């Protein structure tokens, strides 16, 4: 069942076409990664899907409804976790914000917070402030707050881009696991090919400087590697290597 549909979505910035009209759909429960070099409009596309900006051309529908403004049913994970967390609220307080916003009854909040923090392995740090957490833990906290929203879809804008390689892989695994467990729908923007293939059920590749012959949508590829995945076996999987080569070809010669 289609959850999100992009219908001829185009983006212009300063009179220049950044994203030529692009159409694709995201089904419920699907993990779709959008990759492309800087300036291909992938972040703007995601922000439009979340309702932060209105698309110049075309439209986006969620559950058949036109997307016009942000909604509580869409959770957005920003790359810059330090700026997206409330520094004056503890781990618990940051998660509570989502529950307070949704008017969850006070009696149910504590259990909700506990459950969400357990999913991201932060239950031991419930009374710490964000500044007392490592980068990886801060990003986990932001994900926890988004999960507390009980969203329809999780939108993530290069969420692991600012983390070191080890933490990034650990968080990729955690995300992959909890998405499967909770049957979440995810739209994930990254510029890391391997990350996109490792996480995604499908990869949408965008190129910069679209022309009528070469539109923004360079390729749309299914990833036929079964779950659960783990870093080592996936990255040695022949299918992984083939997809990486294929996508590299599309983007490298954009």
């Amino acid at each position, binding site marked *: 069942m289609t959850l999100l549909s992009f219908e001829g979505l185009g983006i212009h910035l300063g009179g220049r076409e950044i994203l030529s009209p692009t159409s694709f759909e995201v089904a419920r429960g699907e993990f779709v990664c959008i990759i492309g070099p800087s300036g291909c409009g992938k972040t703007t596309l995601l922000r439009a899907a979340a309702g932060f900006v209105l698309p110049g051309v075309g439209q986006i529908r969620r559950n058949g409804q036109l997307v016009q403004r942000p909604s509580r049913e869409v959770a957005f994970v920003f790359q810059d976790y330090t*700026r997206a967390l*409330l520094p004056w609220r503890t781990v618990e307080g940051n998660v509570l914000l989502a529950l307070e916003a949704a008017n969850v009854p006070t009696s149910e909040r504590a259990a909700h917070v506990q459950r969400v923090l357990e999913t991201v392995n932060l239950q031991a740090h419930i009374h710490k402030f964000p500044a007392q957490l490592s980068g990886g833990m801060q990003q986990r906290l932001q994900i926890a707050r988004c999960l507390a929203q009980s969203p329809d879809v999780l939108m993530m804008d290069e969420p692991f881009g600012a983390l070191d390689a080890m933490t990034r892989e650990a968080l990729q695994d955690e995300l992959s696991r909890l998405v499967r467990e909770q049957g979440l729908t995810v739209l994930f923007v990254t510029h890391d090919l391997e990350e996109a293939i490792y996480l995604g059920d499908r990869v949408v590749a965008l190129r910069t400087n679209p022309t009528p012959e070469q539109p923004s949508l360079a390729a749309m590829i299914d990833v036929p590697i079964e779950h659960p995945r783990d870093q080592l076996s996936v990255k040695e999987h022949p299918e992984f290597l083939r997809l990486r080569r294929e996508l590299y070809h599309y983007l490298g010669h954009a």
Partner: protein
Amino acid sequence: MPEMWTRLRPWAFPLLLLTTLEVYVRRVSASSDALAPPTQALKAWWALLWLTTDEGLWQVTGFTLGTAALGLLLGAFLGLVLGLILGLSQRAGHMSFLTIEVLRPIPSVALIPLTMLVFGFGVRMELSVVAFATFWPMLILTQAAARQVEPRLLEVSDALGLNAWQRTKWIVLPAMVPRLFVALRLGVAVALVVAVTVEIAANPHGMGYAMMIAQQSMEPARMLAWLFWIGAVGTLINALTLRAQHWVHVRMGGTLPQTSQAST
């Protein structure tokens, strides 16, 4: 031992200054009516300390501090509310810009004649001048703070579907607190300066007036006692606000000590 020396080091220079002054006044201008040695000033202060009449140290200090505090409260509150409105609503900001730019440069002490006419001598005239003086920095800094809230946090509040009141209560106001404290510390300093100035210039109450009386009755020791006392009170108040600021900073998730040392 060396630790003790380190701790005593900041006191060396003030001590040297006081000693120099003491020696200078006693040796060079022993018969001067204009100056008194610090020890005489200390003696005068001691006498004031035990004076229980209206001219006593605590009564006089209480008047100045109380009036300054009330004026600051009024000015800061009005500045905060109006600054919040002007900071959050762009239209209100545009509409008020010219008015603010015309009124703000008026020196607060220039209001003394007007307030004397309206309120006469006493608490109310001094309070209103202090309120006027502290209103402007609070207004301008609050307005700026409201406009400088991290834009990412505003997007978070949109994504969570907060309404305008929730956004103000949970995001905007807490995010402004560090900048508001800077404004408040500025306000505290301004309030004390303006209160004493009003007392020296016009209002026959408080520490400024007490100092004027001592000067006019040729009692330099008492005058100096008041001068040192005003300085000491100002230092104490500054230290207290700094401590309050630090306390709030830590309670709000800050980890680094914000100001390296409590400057005296």
